């Protein structure tokens, strides 16, 4: 189990209807590739976040399939169109089965 995992997201709290907003996400995670060896020569088992999903009001915005070459603390920045007020939901899936969730509400007005 990866330790000290903490998700952080930055979403503007308000937007005008149909506006594209910049969303930044970062999750602190070691992203152990499974290719490295410890001091005794044993392979350190792979432990990465393999999928990241962002949904807005149940509609998918982005769905990322992640591989071991991605470095520690994966950071994603993307734009999303906000048609109406609602909730932006972020989910990260860890190799060990853990699921980390975070959500932010955006109001259109």
């Amino acid at each position, binding site marked *: 189990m990866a330790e*000290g995992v*903490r998700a*952080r997201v*930055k979403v503007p709290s308000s937007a005008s209807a149909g506006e594209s907003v910049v969303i*930044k996400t*970062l999750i*602190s995670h070691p992203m152990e590739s499974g290719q490295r060896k410890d001091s005794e020569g044993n392979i350190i088992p792979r432990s990465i976040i393999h999928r990241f999903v962002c949904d807005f009001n149940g509609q998918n915005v982005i769905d990322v399939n992640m591989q071991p070459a991605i*470095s*520690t*603390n994966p*950071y994603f920045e993307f734009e999303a169109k906000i048609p109406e007020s609602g909730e932006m939901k972020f989910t990260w899936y860890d190799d060990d089965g853990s699921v980390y969730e975070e959500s932010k509400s955006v109001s259109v007005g």
Partner: protein
Amino acid sequence: MKTTSLKTMICTAAMLTLGAGAAAGQTDEKLVINGETEIITEAPAPAHLEGALDTIYSGWEFRSPTTRAVQMDDFDNPGMIFVDKARQVWNTVDGTEGKSCASCHDDPADSMKGVRAVYPKWNEDAQEVRTLEMQINDCRTDRMGAEAWGYTDTGMTSMVALISLQSRGMPVDVAIDGPAQSTWEKGKELYYTRTGQLELSCANCHEDHYGDMIRADHLSQGQINGFPVYRLKNAKLNAVHSRFKGCVRDTRAETYKPGSPEFVALELYVASRGNGLDVEAPSVRN
């Protein structure tokens, strides 16, 4: 023929001198963090540097536009991840006394404001100049009854970053007179002493050649106002003494140990060369 080639040489020499001038590596851009905290990255040199430098520049000025940009938003700055971790440790009880940092120091935003700007600092009780790291370990062993941290452990450097962050945007102002003076003199001597097979002193690069290229990189003035610094090359926070060690090693010398009296003296001296620049920690460099 001879006169022509001599003329060409003089011409080239003049161009080289121009190239090494003030505009070599620094940027005109201003460092504003989160769109609100303005940071002074260029200042008149403190009085004790007369004859050596006229203007002092933060290392931020010498970095590429993309690296500079990462430091302008705390969300983008990976150093803040370490600060967040240290914030948890700050509130975690450790040691035999049942205390955390917060038990005595409460909220770091109040109790640690301005602390980093004046360290390293003379400690009257201990009769020595102390760095933040030494002070933290003194707290851990004497007041908390906890084990001392390694001088450049990630946990230690993260805690230094948390404390330093509370002084961000305040000018460095370490005292070099009074009881700290002898340590400062020792640090100054180390700064100008050539070491290693390459026979280089700190000054040979950071005073004589800042702004020039060192292989694929711009040499900075070696200011430490941004420490602890998140380096893209090793993806972690780096302590001042780790940087000193790396530099001395690069002159192909046996280095002093992080936390040694030599490096403490050098830290005081190098910090004093940045008196007037704002604390930037945690900064981002390559």
